[in-house]
């Protein structure tokens, strides 16, 4: 250990105010006459400043770790006994019906829509034009004019793979055509988020293959697919704006 080492070993304690008054005074006296130790002190101050700055610079993991967490907490949750009141069950049923109806309404392709999804102003009768193979129950079977409720009843499940994949493909195509209207930062955000969602979907599928009865994973997969669709719709809408 050199004479410099004896002093430099005290510099961290000096910077952290961990020295007794007498030691502190001795270090300061040495620093006044020693450029080498003063330089080390400056370097250590820079290191500390960089560390403090790093505290605010956090980065998410490259992989979506949520699926692994969700699978484990689902196994923890299963032994719990959960009970609901009749009123809660009725409220849940109404909510599920409303959400399902909303998803079907959004996912029914509209012939006039570039992204393949229904506009909110699309008339229910256009469902038959979009799906010519389906019976128009409202008009042909019951003699009534078709309404929104009929459309939901005819089309059934909305997140079937073929229908979902077609909607995603249409949106991706529309986004590809319109990406020139977006700035590079927005494109980067969209692509990064799509990549994350795709990873989540892939991991959820993989986890479900190993644990097909896991209801939480099923819900997670549906939610991830819905997020992808929503992100694509929002991004595509940006390309339509002037």
């Amino acid at each position, binding site marked *: 250990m050199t004479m410099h080492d004896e002093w430099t070993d005290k510099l961290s304690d000096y910077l952290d105010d961990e020295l007794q008054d007498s030691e502190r005074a001795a270090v300061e006296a040495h620093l006044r006459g020693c450029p080498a130790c003063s330089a080390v002190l400056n370097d250590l101050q820079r*290191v500390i400043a*960089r560390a403090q700055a790093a505290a605010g610079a956090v980065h998410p993991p490259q992989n979506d770790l949520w699926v692994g967490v*969700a699978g484990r*907490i689902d196994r*923890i*949750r299963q032994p719990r006994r959960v009970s609901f009141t009749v009123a809660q069950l009725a409220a849940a049923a109404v909510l599920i019906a409303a959400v399902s109806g909303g998803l079907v309404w959004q996912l029914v392709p509209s012939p006039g829509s570039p992204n393949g999804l229904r506009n909110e102003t699309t008339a229910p009768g256009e469902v038959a034009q979009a799906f010519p193979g389906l019976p128009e129950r409202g008009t042909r079977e019951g003699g009534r004019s078709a309404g929104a409720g009929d459309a939901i009843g005819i089309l059934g499940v909305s997140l079937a793979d073929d229908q979902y994949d077609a909607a995603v493909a249409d949106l991706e195509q529309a986004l590809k055509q319109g990406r020139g209207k977006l700035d590079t930062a927005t494109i980067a*955000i969209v692509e990064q988020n799509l990549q994350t969602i795709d990873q989540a979907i892939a991991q959820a599928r993989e986890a479900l293959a190993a644990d097909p009865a896991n209801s939480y994973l099923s819900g*997670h997969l549906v939610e991830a697919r819905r997020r992808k669709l929503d992100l694509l719709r929002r991004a595509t809408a940006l390309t339509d704006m002037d």
Partner: protein
Amino acid sequence: MTLSGDTAIRGGMNDDVALAAAGDAFAFERVYRTHVARIHSLTRRMLGNHEADEVTQDIFVRTWQKLGQFRGDSAFSTWLHRLAVNVVIERRRSFAIQRERMADDPSALDLVTVAPARADLIVDFEHAIEQLPPGAREIFVLHDVEGYKHREIAVLLDITSGTSKRQLHRARMLMRKHLSGL
């Protein structure tokens, strides 16, 4: 034309913690997504890339299990951070190499000598932290990045304050060497 961020998610933080504590897994996912970047950064800095993913998952599973104990006496982020540090330290202890890593080893000063070659200074700094010997790295991250005091670190790591100070100085000198390219 830009896409808005996830401010809506952040705005529901308190509600989500309460819902998650009551067993709502969807609310807990929102809690996870709000905090995962900070927790993963902590584990990556303290343990390295290869263990960060697994330990981050362990932390959030533990969080789910212990959420009922969170009383709101401190900010949730503070509570979560403390829990995360404890899980990281448990992981280190499970390897039963704590004492060896805490031993003073002057030759370790030669381990980190490569000057930063990349322009991105933040990445360089993170890279330099990763190259620190594990014992010095833990204390450097806890003290200089996360703001813990030596006496807190001594309790967390079951070492003396003097050891914590020596390891911190050792880490800083290694970081200095790296950053100045000596």
